[in-house]
Every structure is written in structure tokens, then in C-alpha cells.
């Protein structure tokens, strides 16, 4: 028995040993798994995972007609690791055929068995995808994005550019960066023990949100036309530079903004917005407009021109280019008489001149959404000297930006309302659906209609028979004003001799302008330097080209796109959301507005202008209707007249519970068709047996009529 006891005790010792070993191990696992878990989790992540950003696709910049101006181009870069290849020769042959290089050279390159080599970079997506799909071992495909500007260097100043990370750094790329850039997603790439990265489906944590597309007000055609003519003028005149801005006077939409020459990226500025210059005679419309608006002089009133030289104050002279004894007010504008306009400026007086100049937007930012805009320079009358009033009246002692000038002329062109400049028309989502639409905004009225009509007459005469004859286009009435300013030389602190800044501001067609343009040529060299000889021809060439262009701004069919400028005393657009079309019309009629429907449907989904915005009485409000109820499946369909079986099928498709009363054909349903899904409760169908010979449509109609509260048709549906 002792033997047996000894055995048992020794087995117990062994059992105790094994058990305590297991317990220690269990505690150890608990320690690792539970106490140190977070730490190890971290280490595992560092070990295995690599968070990699997935760049979103940057949104496109589109022109007003939806043509891309800037877009992300996906390019594929192919690298090879011949060491990993099974059959390098065959891979080389296949690759060479796809990327169109010399197969033998590629084979030789592979034979050296380097760890890594580029086979081809920046391939078009089709080729890249085909290579990626081929699944060769040792061939790696990387996707790189490149921003592509489809107009080339043209418009680069206004569009701006992006940096290496595809973030906007200047121009519209910077201004609209918020919309364009999207939100990067990230994935956790998983690294295996050999350091090779794999994307795990589980690893993807956040998908990227691609950028939105921004539809600009720019017109690619006009932009190209303006740039080519501007560049030619700058070249032939040996000018330092030139810039031009064109806009739609009715809406304030900037149609083109051009600079010549194109400076290298980084130094390029969109001069029409960012540079100020002394406008010279083009500024005289401010004086002329003030005189007319305040009724200080009649257009045919005669003024003494002092034979070309007038001493404003002792020691300060104003000269005319052409000596004359005197001009009528109208002719003073036509021939750009400094003296008469200076005298008129005195007539207007400092305070009023300043008020009109500021009302036209000079001296302050226009509010255009563009980085680096300058306000120009317009001192307040308190800082003016004795000679300031007549000097400013002829466009000196002030600085303006071409954009300000264009907007001021736009106010004259559109009947007296200063518009806020627009660069962005729409923001669209990735698939092209409009997310936001920007309508024109009127700032305020500056001149009365009569004043602007007279001013337009004045300015048309300038082109017809005045200083800007070079801008004339046969068969089209054009209005405009030339300007020639001596440049202030900061080195000598005087107005430089022979340094001129020649400009022309024009609008066309004169009677109802759809286009206003400012052309500025900086320091033209040669015999000609007057704005009428230098800048006006550029404007004319642009107009000539535009007339040849189908669907240009002078094509009556297209000008409908821009609405008439809203009057400054507007009504507030009501909220139309979710109203049925008829209620929309009624509601808008209360406000004196007209409805313009887009699409078909039972409810208003969106509207432009938005609710709460100002609109002129009589203006149209565009209302987007929801798509037909059945197409999206988000609303309850009209089931009346359908056999129960079919009605059930349609409800099941939309995951609606059905309760059926009776049998046969549906005669009534609750809730009404068009009710938004999902429903809180199920849908009840009342059915009746209909004689098989009876056609379905009348049955539906009579049933609907009989059922009363349930309308038979989504379009007529009232509030459910």
C-alpha cells in the first residue's frame, strides 16, 4: 500500500507542476491580452499598418457653358521590380507593347535585376488600368494626379494654380479651394512582414469625398479671344504689359479676365483685379453722370475750353490734346476735353463728385471673391487740394482697378444699377447636380434710367465720331471711352514723359449692352499711345471675333441666360420649398413674381433666387420640381386602378407594409400618393372587384372621384 501512496503523491506532484504551469501561462496571457492590450494594439498598428491618405479628386473649374478649364488628370506611373518577376522577358515584352517602348531595351534593363525602376510615368488612365489589370508580378502601378489647365497658360492668372499637394495657392483655385478640394479619406494600408503593402478591405476607414465642381462665369471662348488680341497688341506695340476684363453688365458676371504677357507661376497676378492705375479720361463718365443726374448742365450746353490750356489754380494747368475755343457738354465727352470736364467737375463740387465716385464703387473693394483684390485709391474730399476736384473729374489723382471701371460702365450700360461682380455661377456635385446657384446681386442704383440713356448716347458718339473711332464695328453700335494717362514714375516722383497707360472702356451693343470691356495697355512704345489708337482696336477685334462666334454674347438666343438686373427696390422671394406647382404660382403671384418651372414633379425642391433674397417685381423665379414620384421610389406611388397583386408588388419594392381591405382592384389608398417614404405606419388599400371588361383607366378615375379624400394622381396631390 505504501507503494501505491508514493505513486499517488508523485502523480499529484506532477499534476501540481503541470497545473501551476498552466495557471502561470494563463495569467501571462491575461497580462498580455488585457493589461498591455492597448500598448500592443499600438505596436501592432505601427508594425503593420500605415495610414495612407487617399486624395480626393479635386473638383473641376468649368466655364459658364460647362467646359472644363481646370481638372484633375489621373495619370498612372509604372514601376518595375524585376527581382520579383517570374519571367522578366515576357513581362518586358508585354509592358513594352502596352506603353509603346522598345521591348529589347526594357528586357536589357530588367536583366540587370534592379530592385526598382521606372518603366513609364504619367501614362493615360486607359493604359495604366490595362497594366494594373494584367496582374504581372513585380510590376507596380501608382496613380498620380496632375492638375490640367485646358486653356494652357491662358486664363492662368484668374484660375490660379495648385501646389504639389493639389491645394489651391492663388487665383480662383485658392478662392474656391473649400469647394474644390473635397475631403481626403484614408485607408490603413497593411504592411506584411516583408514590408509589402496591401490594401485590406477591412482597413478602409474613411472614403474620400471628391471636390465639387465650380462653374465660373468666365467664357472660355471670350477668354481666348481677348487673350489673343491683347497679346498681339502688347507684342506689336512693344508694351510692358496689357490687361483686360470683360463682363456682362446685366449681371456683373465676369466673362473674361486676361493678362499679357503671362508671367511664370508665382509671379503671375490677375492684374484686372489686383492692379490699380490712373484711369485718365475713362473716369470722366463719373463727372458726366453726376452732371446729368444732378441736372447741372444740358447735353448741348456750351463750355469755354480756353484754347487748350486752363489754369485751375495758380501754377496748376490743365491741357487739352487738341486746342479748341469751346465744346458743348456732349462734344466735351466725345473729344475728351480735359478742360471742359474739369470745369464740370467744379460745377459738381467735391462732395458730390466724391459721392458719385464712391457710389460707382471706386475707392472700395468690389467684393469680388478673388484673392488679392485692391480697392484703388480715392481720397475723401477733406484731403483734397484746391486743384483736386477738376483733376479728379478728369481721372487723375485717383487709382482704379479695371474691374471697378468695368462695373461702373456696366452700371451705365444696364440702366444705372451697380452690380456686384460675380465669378462663380454654380457649385455642382461630383455628378453634375447643382448644389448652389449664385444669382446676380444688385448693389444699389447710382443713376436714373434717363441719365444712363444720355450717357450711353454720349459714349456711342465717342466711338462713332470721337476719340475711339478705332473701336467702331460696322453694323453694330458700340459705346466707349478712351483714356490715356501719364504714368507716375516712382523713381523721379513725377509723371514720366513718354510713359503712358492707354485704356479703352467699351460696351456693346450700345442700345442694350450685353458686354462691357476694359482694355489697358501699359507703356506702349512707338508712335501711338493714345487709348483710342492702342486699346480701342483690341476691343474692336474682340467684338468682331465674338460676332463671328455662334452662341456668342450677341446671339439673341444665348443672352437669355443672363437675367435682367434686378431693380434696387426688390421684393423678398418667398420660400417655395415642397409646395405643389400650382401653389408656387399662387404664392409667387402674391409677390409679383413669375414662376419658371424646371423638371416635372409634384413638389418644389429648390428655387433660385433662394428664399429671403431680393428680387425685382416681375422677375422670374426658377423652381426645380421633384422628379416624377415613381422614378425615385422615395414617395408613395399612385396605386389606384392597379390590381391588388401589382399594388402589393410596388409597395413591397418600397418596403411599405400593406393592409388590404376587400379584393380586386385598388380604388382608394391611404396615405395619398406622393407621401414621402418611409411611412410611419403601413399603407391601407381599399379594393373592389371590377368587372374584367372595364378598362383600367376609367375605373381608376371613377374610383378616385368616388373615394374623395384620396386623390388619384400625384400631380394634383395637396398637402398629405
Amino acid at each position, binding site marked *: 500500500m505504501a*507503494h501505491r501512496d508514493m505513486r499517488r503523491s508523485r502523480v499529484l506532484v*506532477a499534476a501540481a507542476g*503541470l497545473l501551476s504551469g*498552466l495557471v502561470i501561462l494563463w495569467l*501571462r496571457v491575461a497580462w498580455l491580452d488585457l493589461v498591455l492590450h492597448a500598448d500592443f494594439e499600438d505596436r501592432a498598428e505601427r508594425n503593420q499598418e500605415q495610414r495612407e491618405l487617399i486624395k480626393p479628386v479635386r473638383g473641376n473649374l468649368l466655364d459658364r457653358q460647362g467646359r472644363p478649364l481646370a481638372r484633375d488628370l489621373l495619370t498612372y506611373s509604372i514601376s518595375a521590380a524585376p527581382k520579383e518577376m517570374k519571367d522578366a522577358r515576357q513581362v518586358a515584352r508585354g509592358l513594352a507593347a502596352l506603353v509603346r517602348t522598345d521591348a529589347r531595351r526594357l528586357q536589357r534593363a530588367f536583366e540587370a535585376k534592379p530592385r526598382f525602376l521606372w518603366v513609364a510615368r504619367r501614362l493615360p488612365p486607359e493604359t495604366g488600368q490595362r497594366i494594373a489589370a494584367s496582374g504581372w508580378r513585380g510590376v507596380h502601378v501608382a496613380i498620380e494626379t496632375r492638375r490640367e489647365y485646358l486653356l494652357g497658360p491662358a486664363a492662368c492668372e484668374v484660375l490660379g494654380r495648385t501646389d504639389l499637394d493639389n491645394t489651391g495657392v492663388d487665383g480662383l483655385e485658392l478662392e474656391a479651394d473649400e469647394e474644390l478640394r473635397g475631403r481626403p479619406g484614408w485607408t490603413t494600408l497593411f504592411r506584411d512582414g516583408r514590408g509589402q503593402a496591401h490594401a485590406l478591405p477591412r482597413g478602409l476607414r474613411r472614403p474620400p469625398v471628391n471636390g465639387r465642381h465650380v462653374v465660373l462665369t468666365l467664357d472660355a471662348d471670350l477668354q481666348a479671344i481677348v487673350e489673343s488680341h491683347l497679346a498681339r497688341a502688347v507684342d506689336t506695340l512693344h508694351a510692358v504689359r496689357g490687361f483686360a476684363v470683360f463682363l456682362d453688365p446685366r449681371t456683373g458676371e465676369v466673362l473674361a479676365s486676361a493678362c499679357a504677357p503671362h508671367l511664370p507661376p508665382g509671379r503671375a497676378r490677375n492684374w484686372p483685379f489686383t492692379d490699380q492705375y490712373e484711369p485718365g479720361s475713362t473716369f470722366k463718365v463719373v463727372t458726366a453722370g453726376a452732371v446729368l443726374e444732378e441736372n447741372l448742365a444740358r447735353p448741348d450746353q456750351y463750355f469755354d475750353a480756353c484754347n487748350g490750356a486752363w489754369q485751375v489754380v495758380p501754377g496748376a494747368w490743365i491741357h487739352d490734346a487738341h486746342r479748341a475755343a469751346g465744346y458743348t457738354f456732349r462734344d466735351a465727352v466725345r473729344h475728351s476735353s480735359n478742360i471742359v470736364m474739369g470745369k464740370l467737375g467744379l460745377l459738381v463740387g467735391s462732395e458730390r463728385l466724391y459721392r458719385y465716385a464712391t457710389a460707382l464703387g471706386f475707392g472700395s473693394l468690389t467684393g469680388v471673391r478673388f484673392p488679392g483684390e485692391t480697392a484703388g485709391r480715392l481720397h475723401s474730399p477733406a484731403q483734397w487740394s484746391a486743384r483736386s476736384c477738376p483733376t479728379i473729374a478728369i481721372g487723375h489723382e485717383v487709382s482704379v482697378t479695371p474691374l471697378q471701371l468695368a462695373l461702373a460702365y456696366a452700371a451705365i450700360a444696364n440702366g444705372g444699377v451697380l452690380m456686384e461682380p460675380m465669378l462663380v455661377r454654380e457649385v455642382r456635385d461630383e455628378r453634375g447636380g447643382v448644389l448652389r446657384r449664385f444669382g446676380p446681386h444688385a448693389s444699389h442704383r447710382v443713376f436714373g434710367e434717363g441719365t444712363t440713356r444720355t450717357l450711353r448716347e454720349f459714349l456711342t458718339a465717342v466711338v462713332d465720331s470721337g476719340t475711339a473711332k478705332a473701336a467702331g464695328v460696322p453694323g453694330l453700335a458700340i459705346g466707349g471711352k478712351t483714356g490715356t494717362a501719364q504714368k507716375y514714375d516712382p523713381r523721379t516722383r513725377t509723371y514720366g514723359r513718354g510713359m503712358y497707360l492707354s485704356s479703352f472702356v467699351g460696351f456693346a451693343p450700345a442700345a442694350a449692352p450685353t458686354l462691357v470691356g476694359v482694355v489697358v495697355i501699359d507703356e506702349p512704345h512707338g508712335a501711338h499711345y493714345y487709348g483710342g489708337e492702342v486699346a480701342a482696336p483690341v476691343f474692336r477685334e474682340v467684338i468682331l471675333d465674338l460676332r463671328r462666334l455662334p452662341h456668342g454674347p450677341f446671339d439673341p438666343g444665348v443672352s437669355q441666360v443672363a437675367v435682367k438686373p434686378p431693380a434696387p427696390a426688390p421684393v423678398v422671394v418667398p420660400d417655395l420649398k415642397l409646395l405643389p406647382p400650382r401653389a408656387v404660382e399662387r404664392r409667387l403671384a402674391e409677390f409679383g413674381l413669375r414662376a419658371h418651372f424646371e423638371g416635372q414633379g409634384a413638389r418644389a425642391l429648390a428655387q433660385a433666387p433662394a428664399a429671403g433674397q431680393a428680387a425685382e417685381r416681375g422677375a422670374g423665379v426658377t423652381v426645380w420640381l421633384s422628379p416624377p414620384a415613381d422614378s425615385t421610389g422615395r414617395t408613395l406611388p399612385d396605386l389606384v386602378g392597379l390590381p391588388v397583386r401589382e399594388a402589393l408588388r410596388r409597395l413591397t419594392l418600397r418596403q411599405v407594409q400593406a393592409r388590404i381591405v376587400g379584393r380586386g382592384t385598388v380604388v382608394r389608398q391611404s396615405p395619398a400618393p406622393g407621401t414621402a417614404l418611409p411611412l410611419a405606419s403601413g399603407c391601407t388599400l381599399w379594393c373592389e372587384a371590377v368587372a374584367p371588361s372595364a378598362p383600367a383607366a376609367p375605373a381608376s378615375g371613377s374610383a378616385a372621384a368616388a373615394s374623395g379624400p384620396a386623390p388619384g394622381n400625384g400631380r394634383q396631390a395637396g398637402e398629405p
Partner: protein
Amino acid sequence: MRRGDRWLLVLPLALTAVGVVMVYSSSAILGITRYQDPDYFLSKQLIRAVLGVGALLLCSRLSLRRLEQAAPVLLGAAVALLLLVELVGHKAGGATRQLQLGPLTLSPIDLGRFATVIFLARWLKRHPPAEHGFVRGLLPPLAILGALSFLVLRQPNLSSAVLLGATGFAMIYLSGAPLRHLAVPVGAGAITGLVMLRTHPYQMERVRSFVHFVMTGELDVHGSGWQLEQSLIAIGSGGWHGRGLGGGLQKYLFLPEAHTDFIFSILAEELGFIGATFLLVLIALLLWRSLRVTARTSDPFLFLLAGGLTLQIGLYALVNLAVATGLAPTTGLPLPFVSYGGSALLANLAAAGLLYRISAANASHEALARQRWSREGA
């Protein structure tokens, strides 16, 4: 024949099933990288499991008396194979451990350790150390053990040699050898171990990095500590319930030998603390049932055989788990029933079959005893 302890069939089969699943989970990636076939290891392991279950059933019906008689033959075959491996062995991981027999690779160690336990049980039954003194009682079995361990060591496979020695030594302890006698070989073993470390630099390196780890908690992640680091990351990132079966990430070529020696790490990563506990409970249950069988035997051969097999399985499991959790220097020992590897699985399932057979023998013996007692009583 009476029915044995059915736990001894259920538990090994459960462990084998867990093993097959975990082998698949941990080897699919390796299979793809090496053989372009995620099922490469799984299909092999499945075939072996089927063979193993056959071996288990076979052993559960074996005549134990015949086994005792055949013990020297078995040992002879094992020794022959071990010698053969020296000559024509298949190299794997810097050591010659396997024999290539057509499509099968055979590790003679697994046959060797199995045969050693059987032979030693027979020897210790016939020459109980407690009755023959130190020289005649203890030295001969130690010499046999030493010789076999030396053969294994030659491969070189220090860990298997040590475990073989440890199992044998534990059997001598179970057979009732006096403790003061046993103290001598312990000292000798320690000296041999130190000599081995001196002569086999890669073993030394492992021990050194282990000692460093124990002292400082730091691992030489670029050298021999890499494997342990990856194993600890796997276990530690499991948390309570793990990443989910198949969701482990450490098997992506981070953890070398994930499907063999470090299969527990993948299990802990994917099934978490709960899964690891479950596995430990399975092992503990198996060991408990086996030791229960051991304690109930009446025949010294069966007692030593059952004890030896149990201890062998237990020691392998403990050392494997200790290695995976960083409590022992990194060595290449499989986790019984679970790890990938044909010979080991076969040997372990055969051992389980034998244990069941012994439990059945116990049952019939006890029934007989009860019968006799009741007859005597009557």
C-alpha cells in the same frame, strides 16, 4: 473490453479540430506566398488529422501486453530512423530533422519520444530504481535517456532533447526513485546544458536574448527577438475577444512559423483572451483526465506509460506556450494536437489512443477487482 474515459477521446479530437482551423487561418497567407495556394497547409493537415484519428483508434484497441513486449523493437526502429536522418535528412531551418519518404516528411523525433516513453516504462517496471540502488537502478535508464537525447541533440534540436530528457526523468521520478539519487542527474544535466550552449552559438544567442528580455523587457527586434516580439504583439493585440477568426494580421508574414510553433499566438490574436482561455482549459482538462488515468492504474508499466505520455504532452504544451508568451527562450516545439506537423500530430493522437486504452484497462481491472471483492465478501 470495458469502455475507457471518453474525455480522452473527445479532448484530443477537439484540440485537433481547433488545430486544423487555426492552421488554416494562420497558414493561408504563407501558402499563397510560397505555393500560390491558400489551402496548401490546410489540406495536408487535414490528411494528417484523418491519419491521426486512425492512429488514435488503432492505439485505443492495442493489446498493452504486446506493446510492452514490442517496446525494444519500437525503440530500435526509432533509433535507426534517428541515425538515418543524420545521413540523408531533409534540411529545414538550419537543422536536419526530417526524413523525406515520398510525399511524406517524417520527423523521427516524434517516433523517438513515443518509443522512448514506452521503452522506459518497460525498463523501469522491470528494474525499479527504488529497489536497485543508485548505480544499478538509476544509471542504466539515465544512460538510455542520455544516448537518445544525444541522438536528438546531434540534429541539432536542443529543445526536443531537453524535453525528451525531462520526460524520461519525470518518469524515473514517478517510478519511485529516491530523491537524493535524482539530485545527481539534475546537476549533470545542468552542466551538459551549459556545455551545449557553449558549442552551439545559435542556442546561446537565443538564451542571451531571452535573458536580456527577462531582465529589461526589451527585445532585440532585429535579431533573434523578432519572432518573440511578433508573437507578443499577436497575443497582446487580441484583447478580450480578439480580432475575430481569420482576422489576425500578424500571420501576414510577420510571425515566422505562425502555423507551427507560434500557432497559439495567432489563436490568441484572433480569438482573444477568451479563446486562449478556452484552449488552456481544454489542455488542462486533458492533462487532468490523463493523470487521473495514471493514478488509477495498478500495473507499474501502465502507470509509467500513462504518466510518461501525459507528461510528454503536458511538457510540450507548457514549453510551447511559455515560448509564445515570452516566458521561455524561443525554441521550435509544436503545441500538441494544434500545431501544423504530421508526425507530431500522429504521435500525440496515438498517445491519446494509448491513454484511452489504459483507461479502458483500468475500468476492466477495477470491475474485476470489484467482482473479486464481492465474491470474497460473499
